[in-house]
């Protein structure tokens, strides 16, 4: 039973090195946060960073980061290894792509991978991903009919070879995007972030006297796998299905999933989901998988670190459809449907684990991309701006839902004072939306209301990426649905949920974000909780 002293020392050494490796990727992510240009990275944390073994298996990831990036990046590294080839890899290299099917699902996300060499031995890879402010084409929006309209495509290639930046690539990018300095600046930030990770890893290996990460990787993977298998073993076995309707671009879209729990594996199948859309709301399967795995992990193994071994036990399958769109389908706003995948999967899991799973929520972020410019004949500024905003989260069994909080995405909102410094708009309102939560024993989280107007002498158009307008978040176990969202002008003109649209001079855009669904029979909500909702003004209507 009692191991030898050598075993005991090895055990402790391995644990300590695992911690150290996590610290290395945290430093890597922090560098990206601090050098990035796009507000989505620097204010909102829309990024990911991780370290991989020479086979491309993720060893550790930074806690900072959003599931759509982390879990897609975990797959992306394999594509880089296959396409660049070991023979062409040199110390000081950095590889890049924004291929939606090999990266993270749309052209706006730039993924960079750098090999890490100790001497001339390849010991691992660092990868990171960030959303840049522009990639040319139609701009960030759902209006493209194919990926070719959505911007410049960068196939997997070298951004830097042996430390020398590929200036031809930089020139091509500069010529193709609306904000060349910010975009190229972000390319440099991504490369710098991998450099920092690499330097710290090599320092760590030299200090400890490691020549490879093989033993450490084996330790991390075996521990993680065993712990995840324990959790899967505790689940009921069988198959459970769920369906969900979303707004789509111009007609509703049906999503379907079956979660099958077997011995030592969980699979999610998306057969029954609607076909590929004509519009840019399609999802490459790499992104569908990222959010399906995220939902499963939240319920099954929330405390187990995200790495190759924990992700490996969750698989997905799907025929070609809106959740498995193939090239050249348009995919620019794949996150809207992608962010609804957790509610879809959690609905199936709720049947397997009654009483354990939260109600549906707002789901997709209400991102708005604003393109502002001076009115004709006036002086002023042009600017591209992106705001992330969140509606209400679904009620939890035992707890009200969180108001105006991103789920499943992990991003933050930007301060409106920073947004107004970035470009010529005025945000007149950004506050909670009373009476938007679904009632229940535990009520959903509240949505929010946002009002935006162009600054004096300016006008703007915006790309709508909104959902849950026609299809509100559903309650669970007798809980009521949340209030649906709406997008309109201050004169009552209704705007479309997706696509680029103009706001006339002098008008404000008004967004009402959805509230989360309730959980449990509203009749059983405590009198104290109801009284509190009234005092706070979360609920104002009579009879509720």
């Amino acid at each position, binding site marked *: 039973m009692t*191991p030898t*002293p050598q075993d005991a*020392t090895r055990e*402790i050494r391995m*644990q300590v090195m695992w*911690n*150290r490796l996590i*610290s290395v990727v*945290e430093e890597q992510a*922090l*560098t990206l946060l*601090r*050098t990035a240009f796009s*507000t989505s990275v620097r204010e909102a944390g829309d990024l990911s960073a991780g370290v991989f073994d020479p086979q491309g298996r993720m060893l550790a990831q930074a806690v900072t980061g959003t599931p759509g990036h982390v879990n897609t990046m975990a797959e992306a590294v394999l594509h880089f290894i296959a396409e660049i080839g070991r023979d062409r890899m040199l110390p000081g290299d950095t590889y890049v792509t924004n291929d939606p099917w090999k990266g993270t699902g749309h052209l706006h996300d730039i993924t960079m991978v750098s090999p890490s060499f100790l001497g001339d031995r390849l010991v691992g890879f660092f990868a990171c991903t960030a959303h840049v402010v522009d990639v040319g084409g139609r701009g960030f929006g759902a209006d493209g009919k194919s990926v070719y309209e959505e911007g410049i495509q960068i196939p997997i290639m070298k951004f830097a070879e042996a430390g020398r930046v590929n200036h031809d690539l*930089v020139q091509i990018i500069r010529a193709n995007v609306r*904000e060349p*300095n910010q975009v*190229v*600046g972000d390319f*440099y930030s991504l490369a*710098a972030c991998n450099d920092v990770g690499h330097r710290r890893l090599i320092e760590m290996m030299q200090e400890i006297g490691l020549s490879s990460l093989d033993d450490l990787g084996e330790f991390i993977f075996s*521990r993680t796998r*065993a*712990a995840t298998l*324990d*959790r899967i073993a505790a689940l009921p076995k069988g198959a459970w299905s769920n369906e969900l309707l979303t707004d789509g671009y111009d007609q509703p879209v049906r999503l379907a999933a079956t979660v099958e729990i077997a011995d030592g594996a969980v699979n999610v199948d998306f057969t029954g989901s609607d076909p590929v859309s004509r519009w840019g709301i399609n999802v490459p399967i790499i992104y569908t998988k990222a959010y399906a795995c995220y939902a499963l992990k*939240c*319920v099954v*193994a*929330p405390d*187990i*670190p995200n790495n190759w071994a924990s992700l490996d036990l969750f698989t997905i399958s799907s025929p070609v459809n809106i959740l498995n769109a193939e090239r050249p389908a348009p995919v620019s706003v794949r996150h809207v449907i992608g962010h609804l995948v957790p509610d879809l999967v959690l609905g199936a899991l709720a049947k397997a684990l009654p009483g354990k799973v*939260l109600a549906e929520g707002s789901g997709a972020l209400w991102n708005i991309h604003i393109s502002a410019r001076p009115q004709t004949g006036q002086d002023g500024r042009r600017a591209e701006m992106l705001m*992330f905003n*969140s509606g209400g989260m679904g009620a*939890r069994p035992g*707890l009200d839902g*969180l*108001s*105006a*909080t*991103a*789920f499943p995405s*992990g991003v*933050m909102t930007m*301060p*409106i*004072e*920073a947004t107004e*410094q970035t470009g010529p708009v*005025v945000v007149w*309102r*950004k*506050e*909670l939306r009373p009476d938007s939560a679904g009632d229940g024993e535990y009520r959903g989280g509240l949505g*929010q209301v946002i*009002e935006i107007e162009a*600054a004096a002498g300016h006008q703007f158009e915006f790309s709508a990426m909104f959902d849950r307008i026609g299809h509100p978040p559903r309650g669970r176990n007798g809980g009521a649905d949340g209030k649906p969202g709406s997008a309109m002008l201050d004169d009552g003109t209704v705007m479309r949920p997706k696509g680029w649209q103009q706001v006339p001079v002098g008008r404000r855009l008004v967004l009402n974000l959805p509230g989360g669904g309730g959980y449990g029979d509203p009749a059983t909500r405590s009198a104290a909780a109801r009284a509190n909702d009234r005092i*706070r*003004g979360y609920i104002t209507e009579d009879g509720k």
Partner: protein
Amino acid sequence: MTGVRLGADIGGTFTDIALDCRGQLYSTKVLTSYAAPEQAILDGIAVVLRDAGITPAELEIVIHGTTLATNALIERRGARTALITTEGFRDVIEMRTESRFEQYDLNLQLPTPLVPREDRFTVKGRIGAQGQELQPLDEAALEEIADHIAAEGFGAVAIGFIHSYMNPAHEQRAREIIAAKVGVPISISSEVSPQMREFERFNTVCANAYVRPQMADYLARLQVRLKEMGATCPVFMIHSGGGLISVETAAEFPVRLVESGPAGGAIFAADVAQRFGLDRVVSYDMGGTTAKICLIEDYQPRTARTFEVARTYRFCKGSGMPISIPVIEMIEIGAGGGSIAWVDAMGRIQTGPESAGSEPGPACYQRGGERPAITDADLILGKLDPENFAGGAIRLSVDNARGAVLREVGERLGLDAEPAAFGICEVVDENMANAARVHAVENGKNISDNIMIAFGGAAPLHAARLCEKLGIDRCLIPPGAGVGSAIGFLRAPFGYEALASKVVRLSEFDADVFNELVDGLKTTAEGFVRAGTQGAILREITAFMRYVGQGWEIPVTLPDRAFTAGDVAMLQGSFRDNYARFFGRAIDGLDGLEIEIVTLSVKAQDERTAPERLAITTGTTLADAPASRPVFDPARGETLPTAIVDRADMAHGTRVSGPAVIVERETATVVTSPFDVVMQADGTLMMIRKETAA
């Protein structure tokens, strides 16, 4: 020093008093009394005055720092506060960043806002991003709000309007209107925290208002009681940025007192660094529940513009409330002597942030603690003497420690008590090392270039191993380390940092406007410093700059003189140099990539005569150890016979070769096998890495 100066630090458990009486130091620790915090100070003062044989009237200055403001925020024991804010932004302090600080916990709960929604009032009136008025202030509506606040019996009012850091006119006018009808203190965000980012600024002004009545009462009581005991000298407060401010200023801006105790610790370390002429130092303060790490360059602790207090979820970043004020920048992690060790689902040892505290305390205290704490692991490894802990005041039970470590860690991993205890110490040491490395990198520094200064009860037990992990060759353990913060107060300058957010692109640099801004900040900062000194004042001017489009600014030190249009090239060059130092390389070849200044800071402090410089003694005589006991040595991975030496028995120049344990009343300094330790002239211990074989 020739004067008679007294420092008083109210901490969570103890109130520490340090008296510098014409160069002689006296100190004591008294239990903190929450009901009447000033009583502990008076009791402590009585002790040190008696020890020094002087009367209260001989005190020349009392310098005070307190955790009371922090505790009021953590425990939510402040005044009922009304927040008046811009229409459309009622929920800024409740919506926070709209994110979850832990991605996978579906049962997460966010911290409750300091001011509940029913107590937040909105009013029309809007300032734009450039400081221009977009909509006039609705004064009639403010009159009604004032009536309501007066009728409802609020204890404090906070006012926070959008973009008030660019133009405070609306906030100032609103204060006039409210003050005419309401008799309680009013705080406005453009004075408390004139920095961009509405959530941080509004939360900071609410925190200030929330603790203000309580702190003002306390400070008034303290002054009365001191006068009654015969201490007629002035009282100054230490603030979170590490300088001194008047009691009047502290009563108006009590949020500036948050984290003043840890600030004292950093000043203590900075003073030790200056005495020994060490220009790059990392201070390491480990107490019962947390460890704090701070970088000190050229005898000045680094400062930051924002920090987070009252974290509610496993010390997790984002789970507390942001406070935007100048603060000594330090990293704090949940790693102290009382931190609990446990095993997670992967069979990994974890430590903290949960702490056994003083009740029940670690298992070895024999006060009912069942779960293993860091102190239990230290005891099992032989670092502590069970018969002689805290001068023999507490008898430690090795059996209890072994039982707890085996039950909660050893048996789950198939390890005996010693390897399990080694594992616990390795994990906590590694966590601290990682925090220190990341903190250094965040500041563009290399941790191994520094010398460590360790203080706080648990730090000397772990410092040597931490130095091994960080590649640090020297570590100082000064005397009086148990009351380090209170001693630090005695060394604190009269100092104040004034900040203002103003976005200035270098392409649009207007020297006149810029000079006016800097002069305004100088006047503000020096005004506070003049309250305490008539002597010369030192200034440091810093611009926080970035490439246009970035969100993180890096500090760039500017010359203290009037600026001209020709200075743009200098500003550009300084920024690029600093940028390269932080991030490896400046960004080249981007036509028209602009640089901007976002925030300006002026730090002012009185000029101090440098303390007498002490030469470092490396010692040559190896002392014979009178006693020895087996202690586990982490570098060698085995238990070694280890010299046990009483600190009081070491004369200046005495050198003891590791492995050794230097014991004293409050704690013990563990010297691991790669180090020797040498007694310095002033009673400081210095660990020095042994020469590697040539």
